[in-house]
Each structure stands twice: as C-alpha cells, then as structure tokens.
C-alpha cells in the first residue's frame, strides 16, 4: 500500500527522536576529592540562596593565598544544604549549622570529610539551627530560628542531650534565638526575629535564667569584650499596620554581663541597619561593619566618626558592599564579605589588623560566616 513505506519512515523518525531523547541527563555523581590542609586556614561559609540548596564552604590559606571553593561538596560528594547559617571550630572539627536543611554537620577541619551530623529527627525540638556555642568537649548549645528551644547536644558523638525552653510570656515577641556569648556560667543569646529580647541561659542547669528587654527591636549581632561587657546592635525592626515591630532605628547597647544592666544606648542613623559587631583577639577593640568598617576602643564614650577601613572601589568607582565580618584570632586580621547581588559568587576582602588590604578572593554565594583554624 502506498502509505506503508512513508509510515515506516515516520516511525523511523520517531525512533530517531526517541534515541535522541534517551541521551538524557542522569547525574553520574562525582568522586570525593582528598584534601589535607595546613594547620592555618580560614573557612568561609556561603549561605547560598534560600530554597535553592546551594550553600557552599570555601577554604582559604592565608599563607599561600590560595582559595578552594565548594570544599564540602568536593570532599564528600554531597551538598552542604539550604541556607548555611554559621560555622565554628572546636578542636580539629568544624561544625556547620545549615538552617533550612535542619542539619548540623561535623567535618574534619583538615580533610573536610564528614565526621557526623545532627539532624532534626535526632532531636526533640530543633527545626532551623542557627548558631552553635561550645560549653565543653561534650556539650554544646544550638539556637533556632523557629523553635522556642535551645538544643543541647554532645559535639563528640553528635547526639542530642536536651532542650531548653525559651518561651516568652508576651503575646508577641518571638523567641527565636541567634548568636551566643558566654560570661561565666551564663550564656547570652539575642532574639532577632520580631523580638526585642536578650535571653540569659544558665549553662549549669540548662534553663532560662533571665531576659533583658531592649528599647529597640531585633537585636542582630552581639559580642562580649575583655571587661565582661556585652555589646549588642539592633536593626530597629519595622512597623506594620496593626502591630509594631519597631521603628526602623537601630541602636548599639553596652550591657553589663554581671548585672544585666544596660549601661550605654547609642542611637544610630536609620540607614545604618546592617551593622555587625566583632572584637579583636584581645577583646579591647570593637569593630562595627556598616557599609565601611569602623573601629572603637571598648572604653570610648563616643562612636567613631570616620571609617577605619573604607570599602574598596573598583576602577569604575563602584564600591564593595561590606556586610559580613570576621577577625582572625591569631593575628587580628580582618576579613569582610561582599555578597555582590546575592545571586553570584561573593568576594572576601582580607585586611591586616592595621586596615591594609592584603588580598581579595571569590567564594560562593552570600558569604556570611568565618571560622579561623
């Protein structure tokens, strides 16, 4: 019959297309790379984009000025997760809280190989882990964005120990918990999300011991200095139609860690909401990152007027937008992060303790956390 041959041709066409379609994209996976890094190095945690699962970890050797990107993935053939929130070192192990994956990774700080993990399923209350604070080799606290609990776990065995309720009695004033600093047996944590609280945890009994109410909303960053004074900066929150979560005016507070009394309250300009704090290795110098980097002594009565480090400009006069800071505890070198447009590789700028630019390098998306080995 006339059409039979043509039909066969058509079927051949379909078959050819099918073969083309069969050449599809299965992921073959990759092999783990072997790393054996030197004693000294800087971890840069890049949080990635929310809901994209593209957080990465970079490692920088300050001696050779070499940077290795995505070392967690390369060493372990698995992704770090969604929204890498914080990284800290304890001994030879780096701990990484990946907030929207609900996991804390423990990795070898030299080989970057996974040693263990703590997931939400292993705990009773952890949902979105934010920051980790070590109390001993066998006890650490984890704060949480949503759960009104601080989780206690054993960092050696990566096992869950207990939960500390942080529930606040107010109708609103969310008790999400963020950064932690310790003074004596008390651990202070700031409640950033829709709150104006600092909480004080008794680390011996693992209970909520006290809280401090600030006049400004959303305490964002916190450090403790050499004299036992707590420095806290807020972003000022914002107002809604029916309920107020602030007035958009950030404040810088100095609080006595013993008495929990607010000693100083500096009002910052409303556009200074991205302030983050850090101290030098001795705890006597305070760094504030606020577009530029400012430096002040802990005894200074006034805020610095001129920047200590002015954000670098490129040949066309465009500035780096500085928004993350870390101080190398070994030599006081200053590392600041630039997230660029939040959707491409960020840049880290390295300065000496005197504020001289030493190096700059590309890392992952949204670099925002440093840990120094």
């Amino acid at each position, binding site marked *: *019959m*006339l*059409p039979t041959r*043509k039909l066969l041709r058509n079927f051949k066409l*379909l078959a050819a297309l099918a073969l*083309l*379609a*069969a*050449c*599809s*994209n*299965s992921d073959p*996976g990759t092999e783990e790379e072997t790393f054996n890094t030197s004693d000294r190095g800087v971890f840069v945690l890049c949080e990635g984009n929310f*809901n994209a699962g593209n957080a*990465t970890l970079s490692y920088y050797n300050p001696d050779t000025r070499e940077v290795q990107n*995505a070392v967690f*993935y390369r060493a372990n*053939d*698995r*992704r770090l*997760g*969604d929204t890498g929130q914080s990284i800290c070192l304890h001994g030879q192990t780096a701990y990484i809280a990946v907030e929207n*994956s*609900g996991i804390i990774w423990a990795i070898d700080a030299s080989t970057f190989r*996974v040693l263990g*993990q703590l997931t*939400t*399923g292993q705990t*009773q*209350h952890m*949902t979105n882990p934010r920051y980790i604070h070590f109390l001993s080799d066998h006890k650490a606290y984890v704060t949480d964005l*949503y*759960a*009104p609990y601080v989780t*206690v776990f054993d960092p050696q065995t990566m096992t869950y120990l*207990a939960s500390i*309720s942080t529930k606040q009695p107010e109708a*609103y004033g969310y008790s999400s918990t963020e950064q932690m600093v310790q003074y004596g047996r008390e651990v202070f944590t700031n409640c950033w999300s*829709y709150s104006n609280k600092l909480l004080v945890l008794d680390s011996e009994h*693992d*209970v909520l011991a006290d809280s401090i109410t600030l006049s400004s909303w959303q305490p964002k960053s916190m450090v403790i200095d050499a004299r036992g004074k707590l420095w806290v900066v807020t*972003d000022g929150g*914002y107002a*809604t*139609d*029916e309920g107020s979560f602030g007035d958009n005016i950030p404040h810088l507070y100095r609080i006595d860690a013993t008495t929990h009394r607010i000693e100083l309250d500096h009002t910052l300009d409303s556009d200074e*909401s991205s302030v983050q704090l850090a101290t030098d290795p001795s705890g006597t110098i305070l760094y504030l990152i606020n577009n530029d980097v400012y430096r002040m002594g802990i005894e200074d009565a006034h805020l610095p007027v001129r920047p200590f480090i002015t*954000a670098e400009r*490129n040949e*066309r006069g*465009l500035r780096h937008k500085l928004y993350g800071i870390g101080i190398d505890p070994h030599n006081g070198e200053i590392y600041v992060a*630039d997230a*660029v*447009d*939040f*959707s*491409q*590789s960020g840049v880290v700028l390295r300065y000496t303790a005197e504020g001289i630019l030493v190096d700059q390098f590309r890392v*992952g*998306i949204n670099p925002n956390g440093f840990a120094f080995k």
Partner: protein
Amino acid sequence: MRGISTLITFLLSCALYAQTDSLLHEVRITAQRRLSETGVQRTTLDTTILHQNVSLSMSDVLTQHSSLFIKSYGRATESTAEFRGTSPSHTQVLWNGLKINSPMLGTVDFSTIPSYFVDEANLLHGASSLTLTGGGLGGAVDLCTQPVRKRGWGVQYIQGIGSYDTYDQFLRLTYGGQCWTSSTRVVYATSNNRFHYTNYDKKIDERDDAGNIIRSYHPRELNRSGYFHDFHALQEFSLRPASIPGALATAAVWFTHSLRGLPFLSVDYRDDSDFRNEQLQDAVRSVISWQQPLGSSASLDARAGYTYQSIAYDYATKSHTPSSSSSTPVDGASSAVSSPSFTTITDSHTYSQQAYLQGKIDYSPAANWLLTANLSLTYNHVRSRDQSPFHIGDNYNEGRLESSLSLSAKYRPTSRLALSAILREELYRRDFVPLIPALFGEYTLLTTATHSGRTAGLYLKASIARNYRYPTMDDLYFKPGGNPDLRPERGFTYDGGLEGHLQLPLGRRDLSLVIRGNLSAFDSYITDWILWTPNAKGYWQPSNLKKVHNYGTELSLTSELHLPHDWHFALTANYAYTPSLNQSEDLDAADASYGKQLVYVPLHSANLSARLRWRTWGLAYQWYSYSERFTTTSNEVGYITGRLKPYYMSDLTFEKQFRWRRFQASIKAAIYNLFDSEYVTVLSRPMAGRHFEIFLEICPL
C-alpha cells in the same frame, strides 16, 4: 540554526511552488487575511492539543506545544510562563477577556489551569500582546472557552488512574439548544505524588564500630509533601437571542479549590511528618459578555467580570509544648513534655477581589478600514496578612482602580499590504503610564489557490512597540519591603517574520498534506526592570534595577498528512533561540553579571509533537527540551550548582476508541518521562522518573 534554514527552505519552496503552479493553472487570489490580525505574531492551540489528556494543565500544554519557557517544579507545583526570555510577570494572561494575573505578584500559576477547561489558547508574542492588553512586555496568553456546538445533550466522563496514587476525574455535561447552550465541566485531581528518586545531593555513610566508613551511597528517597487535591468546576451558558441576529450572550463561572503540599528540597534532612507545609487556594472567576453587531459595519463586545481569590500558606512544625521553662532531657522522662502539637511558623493569607468592566467597539467604515476602541476598568483589592504568632497585622490592605483605553486603526491600502496602529493609555489610581504606541505591518508576498485544491500563502509581518508594566500591588505596598517610589518597567520591542502555509492534495481525494510555518526574529529592551533583592535587615525589597536586552528567533511548524485508508499523521514543532542578557549597571565593585544570560532562562528550547491515527487507534509522542540554564547572575559554570544541565523529555500516549450503539468509549495509556531520565528543572527540586497513567473515557451517544 539548521531548523531555521529548513523553515526558510520550506517557505521559499512554498513560494516557488506557487509561482510554478501559477504558470500551469488559472490562479485566483483567495480571501484576504483578516484585517484585525495585521502583523500579529500568534500561536493558536486548539482542542486537539488542549484536550489531549485530562491530567494536563496549561503548564504542560505550553511546555509541549509552544516556544514559551515554563518554569515548573513538577506536577501541581507553581508553574510560570515566560515569553522571549522575559519574566513571568511580563506575561499577561486573559481568560475570556478577564485578566487573571495575580494583582499581588503579577504572575499566573499555569499549573492551576486544567487544559480541559480551555477550548482555545492564543499566544501573542511581543508587541502583538498590545492588541489585547498592556503590560505584556514578553507577550500575552489569551485563554477562551467556546459555546457548545453539538445539538442536544452530551455527557463525557474520563477516569484516570496513575502512578503515585494519582487519580484524575473529568466530567462534562452539555446541552445545545436552538438559542441557548449550557456546559458544565468538573475536574478533580488528587495524588500523594510520592515518587522515588536517587538523591545525588545526599550521601549516606555506613560506618563500622570504629567509625570507619565502609560504604557510601546516594540514597533512594521519596518526594515528600508533594501531595495535591485540585478541584475545578466550570459552568457556562450561551444565548443567541433570535430577536437580535448575530448577537451572543455568554456567562462563565469557574470555581477552584486546591490544596497542595509544598515538596521538600532534596537537601532537606527534616522529617516531613514533623512539618505541615501546604498551600490552600480558593478562587471564583466569573465573566458575562454580550456581543452584538451594530448595523452592517460595526460590532459591540461588552464584558463584566468578578474574581475572588484566597490563598493561604501554612507552615507549621510539630512541637512538644513544655509546661515550664525547663530543660527536657533526652530520655524524655521529664514531666515537662506534653503531647506533640503543631506550632505555626507562617500562616499567611491573601484575599484579592477584582471587578472588571470592558467595552469594545469595532467599526469598519470601508472594507479596507477597521477602527477599534476598547475601554476597560478594573478594580483590585488585596488584603495580605500573616496570622502567625510572630507577625501580627496586615502586610497591606489596599485597593486600586486600573483603567485602560486603547484606540486602533487598521488599514489595507492595497490588496497585499495592511497596516495597523494602536495607542493605549493606562491609568493606575491617579498615575498615568506613558502612552503606549504600537505599529504593525503585513505584506502578502503571495497567495494562490488552484482548482485542484492546492493553496499556498506567504506573508511578511513586522511590528514595533513601546510598552510599560506598572508595578504590582506587592511591589508597591507589601510590608516590609514594598517600594511606593517604583517606576513602571519600560519595554521597547520590534520584530519581523514570515508566515506561510501550503496545502497539497497529492492527487487523490483521500490524500493531502497541509503545512504551516512561522519564523520570526525579535529584539527587545526592558529598562527599569523591577528586581527584589534582600536588604540589610534580611527581608526583600523591590527596586528599578535591571536593564535587559532580549533578542532571538522563534520558529513553529505544523503539518498534517491525510493518507488513504484513514491514516492521519500530524506533526507540530517549535523552537526558540532566546539570548536574554543583563545590561544593568553593576550593583557592586565585584559584580560580574553584565552581559550574562538571565538566571533560569534557556538559550535554546524546542519541542516536537507527533500524532498518528488510524481509524480507532492513536499514538502520540511528545518531546521537549531545554538547553542548560544558569542559576547565578554571573553564569558561573564552575560553581557546583551554577547551572542546570540540558534535558530532553519524552512522553508517549497510546489510545484505542470503541463505539457501540449507545456508547462511545476510549482507553488511553500514557507513559511520562519515557526514558526514565533523572533530572531537575529547578535547583534541589527532583522530578519524577518514568511513570504511567491510564484513562478511560465514556461518552453516551
């Protein structure tokens, strides 16, 4: 590029064929093309394509049969459509004349539109969207239902049963009378959607007692929290009053109730049983219309519509409520722990209402003139609030009156040349958008028809337009972040192309070939593109940051071959080449995004659909492909998640129809992802492997 050259070859051969033919036979000019279509770049999808499969949404149909890029996370997840490398909010979508873009986001989720609820879809590319509405910087999608044509009662029921506990039900009742018709359509789709996939983003380490790794592997995991329950009902009436010849009144009401889980990321280590992460959507859209000829040279089209939409997003975690502020030891022995309950993290609700009035008059003072005036008034009201304990109060509660007036003139100075001009003015509250002008031209290179039934046509089309998209209500009013100082996005576009058709009777009455093709090239610039970026406080804020240059080509080809002995073969193919380049000023000293392809926009996209039918047997094959897509604005290919690999997808459908004295029935089997490809279309969102669905259709005669 080979595809383009093939089409050009076809179009030229079409022209040559017609010229040769004209030497041999008497040539007559066929009816002129509709003046209202002058210069318009349009892709039309009819019921053959739209009603292929009851499980398909408009998102699937557009993926398989158009050059639009559909960004989708899988079945029953948010799916948006982009024309020519623009953004989803640059695609304006109308349903029976009613604009259904979200007034909050400016986008449309095409996964919530069952393709069985649409009888004709027209895709208007670039400037052509201005024939319908403003703001479509990429284009517009016009979805229409049509009055029942069949006289008497009609019943159609389709039952689909598929992998992952998927059930699709469709029922349609129709009545066609002398003057009026009625159509009732109901779709109910439900699935737990828990498909297995190999998770290459995770790896399990098995260790011995000493802690040494003895084996590592990528786990097989389930797609979690991807369930859906979608219910749609559509009631339509049409009336042709005998007292007013040519008049038509229609009414349509479309109700939607949709509950969908939001799937977990492949990098999420949490247990889905500890979370509730779902979206509940209810919507009612209604339109009434009146169309009437006004004398012999004018016509009136008047419409009114109302939409109510409620979207709730609920994110909650299971928690144990302690009785006091005390620690909870791991052994759980403490009395401080009570039974688990869900703690709300996010409980956001948006309620939007839209009232709509439109009047359009066409006036043709002479056979070669068509004048059109179109006025529409839309009132949008949105209340957006979060009811979680952590965020009390409205994000915003605003209303906005939007007015649009367009005047157009279409003129055919010669039999071959047609020109069209549109002027559109839009008003948002008291804020006038700058005047939107558009010009269209069309030249008939040839049109022939012979007594033997051979016909051919070849047309040259071009258009140029300026267009504006006004900021959405979220852009302006959302707290925190809304920016009341935003300017409208500005677009400038021009395009040109060839359209051709060829019909060959092939010498026998039962043997014929029809080919239609369209090739166009476009060049567009969008400035003041609104971009949401995170600010220092951690929330997102929009600003007029971006400037984008889009250009490229679009190609479509359809052919139908009728063969003896009831064989019928149809082929549809589309291809788009879409560079979409960021030309914004650098945001930062380290910004490397200038000149780079926009995130998630493929440079190449293509699809092909082949359908073979013999008497009561049918076989259909769909193939579609996207080239690699970048996930960073700087297009870093070295970054581990910097790009998504190109992928090809194939679906196969087999159908057999049966006919009895009182019933007509068919059974259809569909294989999706025929070659079991492992792929993602969006980062960390795994897609289903090969899966199946069987459909049984019954129509009493």
